């Protein structure tokens, strides 16, 4: 059953607009305000309500690096975007249908993302001279014609909220802080949404704080009732977005960070290892993975907040040496610091998982903004020839499977494995059909205990992996280290031929992983043709929708999306060779493009936009059209 339907809007006719709710396939709403205005909460709750009522959703928070920038400034604007629909929703949306702006700065920063004819809901009460000036407006945009291309719903949300919570006798500050819930209440009404889950959430969140919980609930109800009864402008007839046609099953919403935390934990369980040691140092946007795993002690997860990035990598290596699953995580700048330690793990051949939540760089760059420009770093960012496995999740829910896959390969091949997620994937969320984890395949680890014929670099002839031995095992005492090891004894060696041989073995071991991972498939479109759009990582949603849209428009394009970047799937060269042209969209200056050209000798063209934001679907659609026109 979907949530209780609000009364139909047929009594709310005005302005000659047709009565009743317009039915839309999907809608994109962004809540924007000061970083202290509670926009993340309002947006997240809106997304949950949409998901619970059966819509497919994709959500994306967009927040400033400053924790509490001066109120009213453009650089302090925090936003949360929700794309929900009755059809497969794969991105947070190209352009906004509705912008909720709680102050002039929020309007200024976000209005350009609104589609023509889109709806703006503003809190008129916050459009004071002082706030207008702080946002850089000469005159109020509510009073001139600058917002003429849009439908403006200008309400004094501040005053309406204060009135709604008057009876609770809160401080002025606490009362004003209920504005986000009022706005949420109105937004839920506009889209025919339920508010029950939010009411429960508020009660839980403010439990023990008496009137605050009640006041927030009152604000939601007041916003909701306002839509219901007030003399709203014509647009506010509201829209209906029908439930999506989702497969049967048990669902929840999940962010990329949560899915990855659970995927690693599920991988730990499937490996049979007793413990995961997750060692990390706080860095945006990776810290949430540390927070998520810190709550999983009962699942055998020990989180270690190290003194720095290097210590985090080293502690994870020490943990793997001890027979646990060693995992470290960071963002690009932190991974740079871990480089020497990762080289050690390559040299001594121990399992190690390195999660990189990529962000815009170089250096500090734009810490809260997304980018996928650390592919070269993962592939090549160490001294000497130091090959490692590299894989990247495509969607928030895909992070679960990629987390498991990283554990499987790291332990089977005794190798560092990079997981390249990014700022977008880490915080974006979507509905997830919860898998039956008990039916997922196990990949149990065996530690060597037999001293007969043992040396630390004796290898499995198939995988070339060396045996994993836990210190504490009698008879297998051995010494390993960063100095080159003799291939036949494991002792230190400066022998020239041995080094040449070991270098080749290290590369070959990574290549052999290709025999143990799936062949590359075509995500959509034919398996050969004039054009394949080749992507990796979080561009999946935008490429997928762009290819779908292009095909619907009669263009012959296919979509190939890589999870494995090192090694490449064994059939990749052959598969891509079946296309006349390759278009490679990346949120970097052309890194996969470069690797495809250099490793596979393929001709390919890049589509590179490095804005700190995910691709827009239409950017890729235009590139597909242009590529096919050029070809024909």
């Amino acid at each position, binding site marked *: *059953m979907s949530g209780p339907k609000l009364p139909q809007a047929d009594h709310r006719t005005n302005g000659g607009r047709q009565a009743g709710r317009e039915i839309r396939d999907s809608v994109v709403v962004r809540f924007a305000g000061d970083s202290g205005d509670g926009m993340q909460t309002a947006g997240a709750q809106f997304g*949950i309500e949409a*998901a*619970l*009522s*059966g819509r497919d959703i994709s959500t994306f928070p967009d927040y400033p690096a400053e924790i509490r920038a001066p109120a009213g400034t453009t650089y302090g604007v925090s936003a949360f975007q929700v794309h929900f629909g009755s059809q497969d929703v794969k991105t947070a949306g190209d352009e906004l249908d509705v912008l909720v702006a709680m102050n002039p700065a929020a309007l200024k920063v976000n209005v350009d993302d609104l589609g023509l004819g889109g709806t703006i809901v503003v809190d008129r009460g916050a459009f004071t001279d002082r706030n207008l000036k702080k946002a850089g407006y000469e005159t109020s945009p509510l009073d001139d014609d600058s917002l003429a291309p849009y439908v403006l719903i200008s309400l004094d949300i501040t005053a309406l909220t204060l009135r709604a919570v008057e009876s609770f006798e809160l401080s002025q500050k606490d009362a004003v802080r209920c504005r986000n819930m009022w706005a949420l209440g109105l937004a839920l009404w506009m889209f025919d949404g339920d508010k029950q*889950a939010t009411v*429960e959430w508020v009660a839980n969140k403010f439990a023990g704080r008496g009137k605050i919980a009640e006041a927030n609930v009152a604000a939601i109800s007041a916003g909701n009732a306002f839509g219901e009864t007030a003399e709203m402008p014509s647009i506010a007839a509201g829209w209906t977005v029908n*439930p999506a*046609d*989702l497969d049967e*099953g*048990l669902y*929840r*919403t999940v962010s990329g960070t949560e899915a990855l935390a*659970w995927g690693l*934990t*599920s991988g730990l*369980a499937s490996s049979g290892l007793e413990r995961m*040691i997750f*060692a990390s140092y706080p860095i945006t946007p990776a810290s949430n993975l540390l927070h998520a795993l810190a709550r999983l*002690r*009962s*699942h*055998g997860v*020990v989180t*270690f907040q*190290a*003194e720095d990035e*290097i*210590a*985090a990598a*080293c*502690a994870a*290596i*020490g*943990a*793997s*040496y*001890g*027979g*646990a699953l*060693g995992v470290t995580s960071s963002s690009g700048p932190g991974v740079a610091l871990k480089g020497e*330690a990762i080289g050690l793990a390559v040299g001594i051949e121990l399992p190690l998982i390195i999660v990189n939540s990529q962000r815009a760089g170089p250096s500090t760059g734009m810490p809260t903004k997304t980018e996928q420009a650390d592919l070269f770093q993962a592939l090549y960012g160490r001294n000497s020839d130091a090959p490692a496995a590299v894989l990247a999740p495509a969607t928030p829910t895909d992070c679960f499977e990629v987390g498991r896959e990283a554990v499987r390969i790291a332990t089977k091949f005794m190798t560092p494995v990079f997981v390249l997620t990014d700022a977008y994937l880490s915080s974006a969320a979507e509905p997830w*059909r*919860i*898998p039956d*984890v008990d039916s997922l395949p196990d990949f149990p680890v065996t530690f060597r205990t037999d001293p007969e014929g043992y040396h630390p670099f004796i290898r499995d002839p198939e995988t070339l992996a060396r045996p994993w031995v836990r*210190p*504490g*095992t*009698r*008879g*297998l*005492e051995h*010494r*390993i*280290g*960063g100095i080159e090891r003799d291939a036949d004894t494991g002792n*230190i060696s400066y022998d020239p031929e041995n080094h040449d041989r070991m270098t080749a073995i290290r590369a070959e071991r990574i290549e052999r992983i290709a025999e143990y991972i799936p062949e590359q498939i075509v995500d959509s479109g034919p398996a050969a043709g004039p054009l394949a759009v080749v992507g990796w990582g979080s561009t999946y949603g935008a490429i997928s929708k762009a290819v779908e849209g292009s095909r619907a428009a009669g263009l012959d394009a296919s979509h190939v999306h890589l999870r494995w970047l090192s090694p490449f799937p064994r059939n990749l060269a052959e598969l891509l060779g079946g296309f006349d042209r390759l278009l490679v969209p990346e949120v970097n200056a052309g890194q996969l493009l470069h690797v495809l050209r250099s490793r596979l000798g393929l001709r390919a063209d890049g589509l590179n936009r490095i804005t700190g934001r995910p691709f827009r679907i239409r950017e890729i659609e235009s590139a597909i059209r242009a590529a096919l026109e050029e070809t024909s």
Partner: protein
Amino acid sequence: MTEATQTPTMSAKDFASDQEVRWCPGCGDYAILKGVQKTLADIGASRENTVFVSGIGCAARFPYYMSTYGFHTIHGRAPALATGLKLANPDLDVWVITGDGDALSIGGNHTLHVLRRNVDLQILLFNNEIYGLTKGQASPTSRRGTVTPSTPRGSFSNPVHPASFAIGAGARFVARGIDINLKHLTEVMKAAHAHRGASFVEIFQNCIVFNDACFSEFTDKANASSMQLLVEHGKPLRFGPDGSRGLRFDAKSWTLEVVDVGPDGVTEEDLVVHDETNRALALLLAELQPPDHPMAIGVLYRDPAQSYDEAMLTGVPRAGASVSDLLGGGRTWTVGDEGQRSDQPAG
């Protein structure tokens, strides 16, 4: 279980590996290696449960010469690596072997944190006041004015005193030994091993090639008795021939002053009695430097507390709880065969 019953008695030699030791002839490291092997034999250690972890430097080759488990890691990072190892398996007996450059320059941060966390490790810092493996540059413990190829006008940096650093970092076991005083050093290492938590031992180690005799002021036989203060818990701080000298606390300057003990000097009752649990006293002792004062040797500070690994691992199960409970926790909803939905609030 046969393991526990069949452990043979191990001699010091049983802890030596088959690898040829490659330190310079006359290096102080040989004596320390012997001392460690003897310590392990004396305490009845097992090879399989003992791990030596090192960073980079001359001292860091140490694990290759032991028949136990060993891990020669990267420069300065041995404490971080050992921390991860102890979190993976707290039952292992883990020794960190480091030098003055490794522990106090490139790895200074890790030394600070491993000590303040109190990870259950023995940390042996071989202090020779020089970079040996890279051929003789000034190290963080080199005294001001030390002339080396990298400091031709003499070092302008003030040295760090490892024991003071360790006490300042919050270490709960800080001791000192000397490479050529093997008997005493072995006792210090046994005490370090017996201590639960991070045990920090500074070992004065002579680098015969690049910094020969840098500690001779207090290590030479001729000077030893007059310039070494062997501290013992509960005993007055006496040194010199026949204990003829001692340390008295001067309350006006908050310092330890050297006094003569005997008929012409002060009585033993006037001397400071060593109290291992007194951190302020430990710091005063660690700061004593020749020639005005003797060098304090032995256990300067010992005040055990719960170790980090023990605190971190309390309550972590050996086999994890069900992942399916984890995924199904929180707010979920069901999509049925006819697209029906039912909401299951968090519970």
